[in-house]
């Protein structure tokens, strides 16, 4: 296994009594897209700032490209690009002039890359406009162009799709995959499950500052429950008929027009047959039956107890497994520090 491009060992950041990042240990392998997934305010940005030497950890060790951060941050960051929180520029200068300023700080090679990176992010036509006139999506693109100026091995992008329209999202995903195909490592933080599932190879789930799970998307979804969706004449009878089935974990009959969602530990043919048989024999009146395969969303819900809506708003979840002050001590799918 190659040396991890980022290695975190017991990284903690405290603000007074509050641990914004709490004892994070994980290895991030090079040449992959790694997503740091969690609700707003869960410590994603703080962790990125520490990895970039912009903030000091209260305890723990951070290694980026083999260099200790913040001690050897200059060497570590010589080929690292980043967007932290949001890309900021000089609004009274053009996009190209802004890149010239940053390229001058990086060195001559970076100046030579300006046109290529502007073209890569699709900003060549707008490069002469003042950044103050850019939309948020355009600034995000310019931020990515700036992050690429020093030909980075590692890109750290904090919520990079904020402000992108649907077409921009597709382009961004394609660009990230292209960057990974070039051999670069892309580390993104996000609270958008769907985006992460489509873009990332590996994911770590962070909740209340602690990492509650880490692994490849395939590993995470493999262990998650699926959902059997049915539509019946009588949801109440359906609930009665399905009671006692070993593989059924929960039944949600609150959907409209007789829709019932059955969260199931397995969603194979045998389970579907059993559900159909029970519903017919129980007189619930089976009208439709289908399966939703286990997704990252389901895995996330199962691990954190946070719904996608709560994830987007950063609202705390009630009785969330692994949430609050007693999160699971180790990730459920992969042991942290064993390679994500």
């Amino acid at each position, binding site marked *: 296994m190659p040396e991890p491009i980022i290695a975190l060992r017991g990284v903690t950041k405290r603000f007074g009594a509050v641990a914004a990042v709490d004892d994070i240990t994980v290895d991030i392998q090079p040449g992959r897209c790694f997503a740091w997934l969690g609700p707003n305010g869960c410590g994603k940005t703080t962790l990125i700032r520490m990895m970039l030497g*912009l903030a000091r950890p209260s305890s723990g060790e951070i290694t980026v490209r083999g260099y200790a951060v913040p001690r050897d941050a200059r060497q570590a960051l010589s080929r690292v690009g980043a967007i*932290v929180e949001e890309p900021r520029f*000089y609004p*009274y200068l053009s996009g190209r002039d802004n890149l010239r300023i*940053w390229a001058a*700080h*990086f060195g001559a090679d970076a100046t030579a890359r300006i046109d290529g990176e502007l073209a890569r992010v699709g900003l060549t036509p707008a490069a002469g406009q003042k950044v103050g006139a850019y939309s948020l999506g355009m600034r995000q693109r310019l931020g990515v162009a700036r992050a690429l100026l020093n030909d980075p091995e590692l890109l750290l992008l904090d919520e990079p799709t904020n402000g992108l329209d649907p077409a921009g999202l597709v382009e961004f995903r394609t660009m990230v995959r292209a960057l990974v195909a070039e051999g670069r490592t892309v580390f993104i933080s996000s609270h958008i499950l769907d985006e992460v599932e489509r873009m990332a190879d590996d994911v770590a789930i962070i909740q209340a500052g602690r990492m509650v799970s880490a692994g490849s998307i395939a590993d995470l979804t493999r262990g998650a429950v699926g959902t059997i969706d049915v539509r019946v004449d009588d949801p109440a009878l359906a609930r009665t008929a399905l009671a006692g089935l070993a593989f059924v974990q929960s039944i949600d009959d609150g959907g409209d027009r007789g829709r019932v969602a059955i969260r199931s530990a397995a969603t194979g043919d045998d389970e579907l047959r059993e559900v159909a048989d029970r519903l017919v024999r129980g007189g619930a009146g089976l009208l439709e039956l289908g399966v939703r395969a286990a997704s990252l969303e389901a895995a996330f819900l199962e691990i954190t107890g946070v719904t996608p809506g709560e994830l987007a708003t950063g609202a705390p979840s009630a009785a969330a497994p692994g949430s609050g002050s007693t999160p699971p001590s180790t990730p459920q799918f992969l042991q942290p520090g064993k390679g994500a």
Partner: protein
Amino acid sequence: MALIGFELRRIVGRRGSFFGVMAVCFGFALLAAFLVPSGEQNAGVWITAIGTPLVFGGAVVAALEGSYDQAQGTMRYLVLTGVPRWRLVVNRVPALLLALLLIALPAMVVGAVSMVGDDQPTNEIVIGLAAGLTYGAIWGIVAMAVGTLLRSNGAGIAVALVLYLLSTAITAFVEAQVSETVAEYLLPNVAAVVAAFGYTGDDDFTSTNAIPYATAVVVLLVWLVAIVALAIARVQRDEY
């Protein structure tokens, strides 16, 4: 050099402050050239004409330079380039001096044109122009450093201008309450001595002039280096 050039580019890019101050300095110079009778344009006139607007306007430009990257959120991206943090601050000093020179240039041209004429006190006008520019540079560096140190545009302007405006009062107070020697070494006094370039005419604008010129230059440099060093220390330890 390239980084200093781009720092200057950013200062000039904030057109409102840069060209606004330039216009005010130019306007004051025109007033001095046309309203003060020929032959009476001594050093004091030109210090007032160029130095006063340059100190006020320069403080605005300089404090903005010191605090802008922090306020705009660009400082963290400058730090991420790997350029040492201290250098990011130090680069601001020559860029500011160049910017103030550019700002003062049209006014200096007016001053230079005023020297034409047999009855004009050329030497005094030169000293007045140089003193005005020096005043602007000194208090500009103070405003920039305080703006960086306190991460605030307003604080940078306020500290520089309060020290400038109350310089006579501060020096007199320390002279009376503490010691005449200590008063001579205070920043406002050494700034005035250095800016005077040894001028001892009727409009001698230094509060006390006992301190030797060379000593005043050294003490002034110590003051400025100390203030800039405080700003560097803040940037070195800050989290972004």
